[in-house]
């Protein structure tokens, strides 16, 4: 019954294109799932986990905000940045976490606090998802 067409694009590339059974996204008002014949919806997305299921295959992505539009079984996700959990570079995420934490601790006057917090949240999200899903697979 995979008649749900999904397209995920980020500013740097088209990440996913194809038919799926269900999609779970971190909406601004809470996590929700989209199945076939979902009502038309437009929602902003938060930093979190995006899950795509197709038959028995499940894929996980780390998403850092964006928008979703669902209309007539066509789903469009415009992600600010997104990556497959398998492709996350754990070391890099840890480094950027440390960097963001250090910046927040120093409390510099010129510090762009929301930006540093957002960067910390993104790093934490990547680390969390990577750890959850890699332990599951072993």
């Amino acid at each position, binding site marked *: 019954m995979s008649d749900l067409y999904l397209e995920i694009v*980020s500013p740097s590339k088209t990440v996913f294109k194809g038919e799926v059974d269900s999609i779970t996204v971190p909406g601004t008002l809470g996590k929700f799932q989209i199945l076939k014949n979902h009502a038309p919806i437009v929602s902003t997305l938060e930093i979190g986990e995006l899950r795509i299921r197709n038959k028995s295959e499940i894929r996980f992505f780390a998403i850092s905000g964006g928008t979703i539009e669902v209309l007539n079984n066509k789903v469009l996700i415009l992600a600010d940045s997104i990556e497959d959990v398998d492709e996350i570079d754990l070391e890099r995420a840890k480094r950027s976490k440390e960097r963001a934490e250090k910046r927040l601790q120093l409390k510099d006057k010129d510090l762009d606090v929301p930006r540093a917090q957002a960067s910390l949240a993104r790093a934490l999200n990547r680390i969390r998802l990577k750890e959850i899903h890699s332990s599951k697979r072993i």
Partner: protein
Amino acid sequence: MATLRDIKQRIKGVKNTQQITKAMKMVAAAKLRRAQDAIINARPYAKKIQSLISDLTSDDDINSNPLFIQRQVKNVAIVVITADRGLCGAFNTNIIREANRFIDEEILKENLSYSLFCVGKKGKDFFTKRNFNVVDSFVGIFSSLDFSFAQRLSDRLITGYINGEFDKVIVIFNEFKSIIQQKVVVEQYLPILVDKNTNRNTKASLNYIYEPDRKSIFDFLIPKNLRAQLWRFLLESNAAEFAARMTAMDNATTNAKELIRTLNLKYNKERQASITKEILEIVSGANALKSSQ
């Protein structure tokens, strides 16, 4: 009359130039590949976010959101995107000519004023030298093209537009069509134009569920869209620049080859003529001796 040595030196010079143009062509080709990938990957996002906005916009939004409202135009901001460097054929000339035409025909003739924003050194040099009203210019951004620049410039344009500094924003840039073709494009950046041909009203009247609500979604999407569009313009121009430079340098290399061929021919002819002349001198000298005996 060129002597043999002159011609030889000339050939050497042309050969050196040919080597340089050949190297520049290779560099441009390598950079072009990366720039081309970047623009091809960035296009879908820019296109989708724009069509999402024009799908969601209703007539109410067009009349209420400041970024959509068409105001009485007095001052137009013109963003001219050129390259930082030359030697890329008519790339910069085309943009500058189009900007000039635009200012003449659509601004000065209508008694409007304008503010120029120059991205790229070539445009800046041209327009500041001729005392155009250049408000701001950005040089050297193409050497490490970064999204944060698109964000900064976009925010600057939005603020200026909302403050009433200008009533319309136009961007003039080279679009990357293919390796051998660039197209000068004049795009209206602000107020945002929605495509009236789509079945916008039928789509907007669809009862979308909005989460969290319509206004927050618009406030979230519109600046994102404007940044993405500007980012696309910059990437287009960047890829087009390398393509133009590659073609220009390829032509220069071919021309140099042709030049070397003709010079070689000339050199050989000259050499033959001088040999003939020498023989003639010896023979006539010998003859003179013989007849005098």
